[in-house]
């Protein structure tokens, strides 16, 4: 049954905030214990030393930095997609933006933890921040890690604001509906929102500015993450293509994460009327495009290296295409190119199930991609005498598992306190369609109206 009234809309979207099943508690329990195991593993590492990981000489970076790049990459879909769809006034964005923006914030929080987790002395991480200290030393602004620190904190701040601003009217709605401590919580979160025209105008202006500002920030963040690798003279790291290559990969994995999250929310919270096959079809097409762009980059990068035949680079090249990492490399190609292409290029398969399968392989494939960028290069660095090999320890595996659990956990907790679909934006969309004197083009309509065709929407 299509969503047709404001009451039903409120009921559907606020249901998860009010009612919680035993399954939810069970999931929180399981995820929470995985996260606790990861925290314990990290504390064990702080107590004993980084030696409890599988890192060694010369492979100084392994799973932790893989996770860092991976999660920063995942964070790219949310804000970027949301900002682009807002700027282009695509009406079908309305049920998608909130859950996309939330992915960004949580993935960034997890990603940003890794540079600290991997430090030899993690309790001194604040030395990377510029603050007036008694030592009178500033951080080294030549270092890509400092650029990272700035880029990530900027992006985290920006995307948190970008998530928070359009949530204010919904917080106000919740404030009016809730009782007790929740009412107090939402009162402070809604910042005195009363819905005056002036407030609406300001919100609209702020969102427009934020959508424009956040786009270059998002692109710069993953470019700077790629420069962690592209700057030093390490074989197959030192590449001018890394900036756009990483940004493309980030958006690619981010869209995949968004599709998985949307499918999960749709099932768990019964949002079938809101997150429709239409959305998955659109995002599936975008995922297909990004898959092809990713494939283009990997061909462009590897072909030029193979043709150039520079011996230090070829040592790394062969180790990933014929040596130790062959299986992993071709599995990555299978996950990132073959599966998405064969599923998503056929309209018949571009269903919810189809896009979720493709997204799952893409997320796995992109994690492997990050690993294959980092580790083979460090294992085969110039002097053959010092070549090494890397194998993760249980500590790294536990912490990695913990991040996925943490992502799911944060997302689940978020969905219990914040409406996962923007209520006021849905209402606004419904009203605009009802009042529009001209027929709205199919591409920009709200999906359920597309399904109904020609029946005018009645909005109370």
């Amino acid at each position, binding site marked *: 049954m299509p969503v047709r009234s404001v009451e039903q809309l409120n009921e559907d979207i606020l249901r998860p905030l009010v009612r919680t099943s035993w399954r939810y508690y069970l999931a929180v329990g399981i995820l929470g214990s995985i996260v606790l195991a990861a925290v314990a593993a990290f504390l064990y590492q702080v107590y004993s*030393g980084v030696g409890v990981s599988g890192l060694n000489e010369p492979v100084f970076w392994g799973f932790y930095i893989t996770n860092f790049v991976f999660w920063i990459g995942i964070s790219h879909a949310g804000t970027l997609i949301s900002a682009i769809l807002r700027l282009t006034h695509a009406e079908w964005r309305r049920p998608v933006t909130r859950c996309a923006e939330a992915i960004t914030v949580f993935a960034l929080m997890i990603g940003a933890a890794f540079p600290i987790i991997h*430090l030899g002395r993690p309790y001194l991480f604040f030395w990377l921040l510029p603050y007036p200290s008694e030592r009178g030393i500033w*951080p080294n602004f030549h270092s890509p890690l400092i650029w990272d620190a700035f880029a990530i904190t900027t992006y985290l701040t920006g995307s948190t604001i970008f998530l928070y601003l359009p949530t204010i009217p919904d917080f106000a709605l919740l404030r009016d509906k809730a009782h007790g401590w929740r009412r107090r919580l939402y009162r402070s979160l809604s910042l005195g929102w009363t819905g005056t025209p002036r407030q609406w105008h300001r919100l609209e202006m702020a969102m427009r500015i934020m959508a424009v500002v956040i786009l270059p920030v998002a692109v710069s963040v993953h470019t700077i993450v790629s420069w962690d690798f592209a700057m030093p003279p390490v074989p197959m790291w030192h590449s001018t293509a890394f900036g756009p290559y990483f940004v493309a990969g980030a958006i690619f994995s981010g869209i995949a994460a968004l599709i998985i999250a949307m499918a999960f929310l749709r099932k768990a919270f019964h949002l079938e009327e809101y997150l429709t096959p239409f959305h998955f079809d659109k995002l599936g097409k975008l995922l297909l495009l990004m898959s092809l762009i990713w494939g283009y980059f990997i061909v462009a990068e590897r072909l030029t290296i193979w043709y150039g035949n520079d011996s230090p680079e070829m040592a790394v090249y062969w180790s990933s295409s014929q040596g130790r990492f062959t299986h992993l490399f071709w599995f990555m190609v299978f996950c990132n190119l073959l599966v998405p292409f064969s599923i998503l290029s056929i309209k018949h398969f571009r269903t919810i199930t189809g896009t979720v399968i493709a997204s799952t392989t893409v997320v796995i494939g992109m994690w492997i991609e990050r690993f294959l960028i980092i580790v083979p290069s460090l294992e085969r660095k110039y002097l053959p005498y*010092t070549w090494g090999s890397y194998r993760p320890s249980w500590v790294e595996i536990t912490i990695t598992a913990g991040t996925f659990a943490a992502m799911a956990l944060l997302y689940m907790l978020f969905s219990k306190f914040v409406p996962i679909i923007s209520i006021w934006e849905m209402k606004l969309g419904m009203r605009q369609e009802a009042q529009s004197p001209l027929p709205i083009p199919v591409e920009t309509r709200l999906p359920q109206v597309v399904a109904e065709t020609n029946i005018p929407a009645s909005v109370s």
Partner: protein
Amino acid sequence: MKRQWGMVIDLDRCTGCEACVAACHAENNIATVGDDQAAKGRSMHWIRVERYWEGEFPDVRLRYQPVFCQQCADAPCESVCPVYATYHNPEGLNAQVYNRCVGTRYCGNACPYNVRFFNFFNPVWDKPLNLQFNPDVSVRSVGIMEKCTFCIQRIKTAEIKALAEKRELKDGEFNPACVQSCPANAMVFGDLDDPQSEVARLAQSNRATKLLEAVGTEPNVICLRSVS
């Protein structure tokens, strides 16, 4: 006076005896990590002697290449350190400030020579090595990088002594532990900016090469190697 400390290694003289490795460990309080850790690739030798076989059996030739921090003029490790734990000192040395290091290990990745070492655990010394620490060198704790310093403690001692005696440092007045211990006299240390010094003279040899010169790090260690 401006100096540029540098070293010349005559690879044609090197016998691969590794006396330099032992001397360096003793001089610089370098931890012995033990069998297990060494097998994991975590051994710490600020100087190591790499062995390379040339040719096909039975017509083979063994080459030794001692490798340690090349004290690069254009060092990739320096620019990537976010906290200035490694920096270029006024005497052209690639200095490492242990207290300042937070352990990103970025310098270790950036170094093309793999001569930077990380303390994966707190250092330990098997008995009786724990009784022979050099009091002039600080012991490094877990979580930080360390590397060859050209025995900066010896440099400073000699400089202070010369200053107290109101004279210039003499060429060859002191040497790093590896140079001092080399039985084949394959290593020479000194000021490359002083045209009179032994090291500057040898650096002009037509056998002079630099390790991984193509990477563009401008090493201050020069290898003498006849082309066969």
